């Protein structure tokens, strides 16, 4: 028989009770759990870099922040719906990472625009046409795991290529988000790639489902490489990256993953714009309105509340 002395356990047990009875006095720094904003607080208030237009910088932070916020929202729909508990954990974790990036970027947008809006007023009180995310972030999975993987593979491959190039952005907040985000998004991409392999090269059924999902998501890729006017100006100012420059890197990653997964590269036509405008200009798919209707509902019901 194994003998395990219980000192440590009793110590832990006592701690758990103790921390409960101390609930009314709460000074533990972990109260702020899950924010990530604290780390970047110093940067968030730093001045707009010389020669950079504040409105452009705010708009760019919204683009990067909204991509993360809306994609995070879609991923969090999987919590308690995933095919395996490990996937519940992994998808929730990915949603949390992106939410953390979104919070810092939205806070920075609010700071530089100088209209007294914080991360929450930007997330909860903007209208659909004021969101700046790409369509790939907002389309729904309808609880099809293959769709979730296809989207995450494309989104994270692209975002990682962006973040790599933003590490030396002249905006210290964007550079800090990139610094932390590169590790996070590398993990997201690897997770999606591992599942693309399993599904693509798993059973005949999973192969078909993964190929179908990939075909459905692929038309949204072209938008990822299309620079807006704001981005063009900020590339000049050393703040932003030209998304067109990420195409080769993303293509190389996808070609490698798809080949290993025995999946074909889809060749359907890309989703078109409306008069040249897309997500970066506030023109979205029909999906975003529903996302926001749900996400913003409670916050809008209680405009006077603090949570």
């Amino acid at each position, binding site marked *: 028989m194994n003998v395990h002395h219980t000192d440590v356990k009793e110590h832990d*047990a006592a701690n758990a*009770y103790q*921390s409960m009875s101390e609930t009314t006095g709460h000074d533990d720094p972990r109260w702020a*759990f899950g924010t990530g904003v604290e780390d970047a607080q110093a940067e968030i208030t730093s001045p707009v870099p010389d020669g950079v237009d504040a409105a452009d910088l705010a708009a760019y932070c919204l683009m990067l922040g909204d991509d993360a916020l809306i994609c995070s929202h879609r991923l969090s729909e999987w919590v308690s719906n995933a095919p395996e*508990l490990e996937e519940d954990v992994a998808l929730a974790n990915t949603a949390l990472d992106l939410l953390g990036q979104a919070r810092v970027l939205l806070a920075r947008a609010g700071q530089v625009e100088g209209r007294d809006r914080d991360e929450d007023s930007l997330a909860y009180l903007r209208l659909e046409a004021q969101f700046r995310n790409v369509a790939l972030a907002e389309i729904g999975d309808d609880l099809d795991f293959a769709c979730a993987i296809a989207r995450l593979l494309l989104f994270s491959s692209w975002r990682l290529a962006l973040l790599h190039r933003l590490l030396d952005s002249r905006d210290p907040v964007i550079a800090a988000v990139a610094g932390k985000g590169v590790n996070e998004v590398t993990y997201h991409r690897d997770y999606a790639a591992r599942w693309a392999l*399993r599904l693509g090269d798993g*059973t005949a059924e999973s192969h078909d489902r993964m190929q179908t999902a990939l075909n459905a998501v692929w038309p949204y890729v072209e938008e990822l490489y299309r620079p807006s006017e704001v981005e063009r100006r900020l590339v000049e100012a050393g703040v932003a990256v030209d998304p067109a420059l990420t195409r080769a890197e993303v293509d190389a990653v996808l070609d490698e993953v798809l080949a290993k997964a025995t999946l074909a590269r889809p060749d359907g036509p890309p989703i078109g714009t409306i008069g040249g405008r897309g997500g970066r200009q506030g023109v979205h798919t029909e999906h975003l309105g529903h996302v926001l209707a749900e996400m913003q509902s409670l916050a809008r019901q209680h405009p006077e509340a603090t949570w």
Partner: protein
Amino acid sequence: MSTADLEQGFAATISADQRIEPRDWMPEAYRRTLIRQIAQHAHSEIIGMQPEGNWILRAPSLRRKAILIAKVQDEAGHGLYLYAAAETLGVDREALTEKLIESRQKYSSIFNYPTLSFADIGVIGWLVDGAAICNQVPLCRCSYGPYARAMIRICKEESFHQRQGFELLLAMVNGSDAQREMVQESTNRWWWPTVMMFGPPDDDSPNTAQSMEWGIKRHTNDELRQRFVDMAVPQAAALGVSLPDPELVWNEERKAHDYGDPDWEEFKAVVAGAGPTNAQRVARRRRAHENGAWVREAAQAYADKQAARAAGRKDCEVAA
């Protein structure tokens, strides 16, 4: 060794307050009781993701959203530790999940109540996680080693959930009138179901004595319930909310609170499957499990192919 020797060794381990480990001999009834209890506990963690998950997409601030996602994620992790502990007793997760979705195994009755306002997220953390901790801290000393060790990790995270729930309520009672009303309404709705989480009163709890003898249980239902009530009363006062029990009063002689009787008929009905959300919770779990079948099959097929490929390479190396 004869069965009598084995039984004697087992009894000696229990009475010395030492741990039984998976490879140790144990009486069949002890194994069965543990499997039932650990499975029920694991299912509770997993079903418990649903009532809180119900508010992830509507959380009213990004900080609250992050805290809530992290908490629900923790619960999935708790389920994983516990299914792993059950596996050391020879039952696998897949088989237990089947039993859950066929309603052949139970989970905590508390999760058969709906979350109807965001205050419920705070109240669940404060009261439900609080009650879970009262139940679970003694399990850190459970006689079965893998279960006790799983509980240590879980209890640390639960105490954090409890504090986060309380902190949300504190923010809400210091907010608008509407928020204060939400907190009181939610407290009224959750109080009695939480008090009933500890199970039936001691004189109506036939399995307690055996479980205590085996060191699976350390305190009776009523002892734990008392501990919970005594803890909750000052916390309710700190929040400025009332608890919906007119008989709740401090008893100076007992140095404990007297409290009223919950509606045990409601408890029995919920346990029997007639709670407000029993059917919904199980259907949701079933849907996730069935929708995920093709994914799990694909992962298995891929792993098999990889193993075959690795074996093929090895053969080539040997041949060369």
